[in-house]
């Protein structure tokens, strides 16, 4: 019998490619023989734009790269710039940053779980996940008045102190959320159809995951234990009690189990963090060159007004040099490589984008698998095209 391969185009406008990812699949029947990945449809030149901005103006830009883990991006950027500045943060600020980063991880994993399950056919899970994500976005709205890109983390600390009632809102969320997680697990973990679609699909060995540059949830679902929070502790993570979950199977199902487990660990960290954060206290470093004065002082004191004016017109200078502070984001290790030439504008910033590497490894993971599994694998690698294309 004469057989020949067929070429199928998938995307960029495909609902399950998480935005604008394009795959050209070479199929032999239903088996994927080769895949060519095209990205760049969302490239907006954020890194080039950042070179024209002042240091503090870059925060909103980097938040728009990985739009599901916005505050994780700004945290990575702020940490790198603070490293160059040689700044020490008050402990309270570090705890608040830990709390925000973990809440962001939960929010990102919720979107991931909802969309991934929906693509496989479990549509109701998406509705539940977005219900809880709404609560997290409300928390963002409380701190910064902005839901998706709060720009609350700034170079030198935070934008302002936590709002009144924030502790209660966070505690209410943390009390309710573990029960909701059980609900998701009831829907999926023992679901026969879901397990049939995910077990043994898109298997990646630990060695391959590391060789393809996928530290983070993907490598940990393949048996790796590498987690930046443990390996290279930043902020005050070394004082927190939490486990780094790891699953040996390396398939889509393991990635699902891992991310759910990570959300439980994040809740644990958040509980400890919210207990350590005092209701009022320092919310930025005591460095008048970098941190703008509080608004009530700007209106009443001459020095504060001058300082405010200088920071917002000239910006601040950062000593020449380069720094890269890694952060464990929702999608794996990321961080911003910052190069300064000693002026008030960055010379170069480069975001390490975990989704970029996940996209690169896609053809390797889906090769010799069924075409229906391509959707499951793309979903499980949690690519965010804003992060890939930047």
């Amino acid at each position, binding site marked *: 019998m004469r057989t020949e391969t067929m070429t199928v185009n998938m995307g960029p406008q495909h609902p399950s490619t998480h935005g604008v990812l394009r795959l050209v699949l070479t199929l032999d029947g239903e088996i994927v023989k080769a895949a060519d990945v095209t*990205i*760049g449809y969302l490239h907006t030149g954020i890194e080039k734009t950042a070179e024209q901005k002042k240091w503090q103006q870059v925060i909103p830009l980097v938040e728009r790269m990985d739009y599901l883990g916005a505050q994780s991006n700004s945290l990575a950027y702020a940490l790198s710039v603070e490293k160059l500045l040689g700044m020490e943060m008050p402990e309270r600020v570090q705890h608040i940053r830990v709390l925000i980063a973990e809440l962001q991880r939960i929010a990102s994993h919720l979107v991931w779980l909802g969309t991934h399950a929906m693509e496989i056919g479990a549509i109701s899970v998406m509705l539940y996940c977005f219900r809880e994500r709404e609560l997290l976005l409300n928390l963002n709205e409380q701190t910064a008045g902005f839901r998706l890109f709060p720009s609350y983390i700034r170079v030198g600390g935070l934008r302002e102190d936590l709002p009144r009632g924030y502790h209660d809102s966070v505690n209410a969320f943390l009390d309710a959320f573990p029960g909701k997680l059980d609900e998701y697990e009831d829907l999926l973990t023992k679901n026969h159809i879901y397990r049939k679609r995910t077990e043994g699909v898109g298997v990646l060995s630990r060695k391959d995951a590391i060789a*393809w*540059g996928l530290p983070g949830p993907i490598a940990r679902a393949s048996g790796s234990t590498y987690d930046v929070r443990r390996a290279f502790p930043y902020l005050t993570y070394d004082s927190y009690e939490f486990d780094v979950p790891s699953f040996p199977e390396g398939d889509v199902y393991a990635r699902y189990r891992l991310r759910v487990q990570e959300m439980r660990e994040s809740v644990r960290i958040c509980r400890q963090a919210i207990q350590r954060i005092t209701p009022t206290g320092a919310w930025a470093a005591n460095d008048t060159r970098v941190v703008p004065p509080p608004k009530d002082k700007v209106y009443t004191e001459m020095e504060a007004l001058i300082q405010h004016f200088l920071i917002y017109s000239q910006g601040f200078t950062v000593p020449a040099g380069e720094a890269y502070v*890694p952060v464990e984001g929702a999608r794996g290790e990321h961080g911003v*490589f910052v190069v300064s030439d000693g002026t008030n504008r960055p010379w170069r910033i480069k975001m*390490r984008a975990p989704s970029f590497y996940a996209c*690169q490894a896609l053809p390797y993971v889906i090769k010799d698998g069924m075409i229906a599994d391509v959707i499951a694998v793309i979903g499980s690698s949690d690519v965010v095209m804003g992060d890939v294309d930047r």
Partner: protein
Amino acid sequence: MDSTPLIDRIAMLVPGAALEAAASIDVPAVYVPAGRLVEVCRALCEQAQFDLLIEITAVDYLPRQPRYEVVYHLVSTSALTRARLKVKVAAGDMVPTVQSVWPAAGWPEREVWDLFGIVFEGHPDLRRILTPDDWEGHPLRKDHPVQVRKTAQTYEPLEVTEQEFRANIERDRVTRDPGAKR
């Protein structure tokens, strides 16, 4: 940050490579000559457990000479150490690809070529990745124009005259043979 232990280690694994410490405040950083790069990377990956390539990027230091630096961030997931390798690249020079050491190097090298125009020698698939295929120039170079208004590139819509249009219609017209059976 003191880079001498890393340099000593590389010098032991790859004798004769001209290494030079790079200024750094966070991780050990070393300048590696482009000619010995693959050798050094292979030794670091296989013998010094730097199994994870975190990223490859470049920086344009115009007007300094040599103009570019290609930067490699490495992590050892077993020893939990980090390193930064840097290669000085003059305009028009090539850097060997390290894809044979870490498969992850493929796309970041494409990205560096796309945005900086640095050619990676031996790269099997050096195409543009973030910008469109017909993009002119390399956007992250410091001399690439920023915020310059350019007229949008458009193509004229396909136009036919009325005669051509009618001729096309006539040519494609199919009439059913009245005697034929359905």
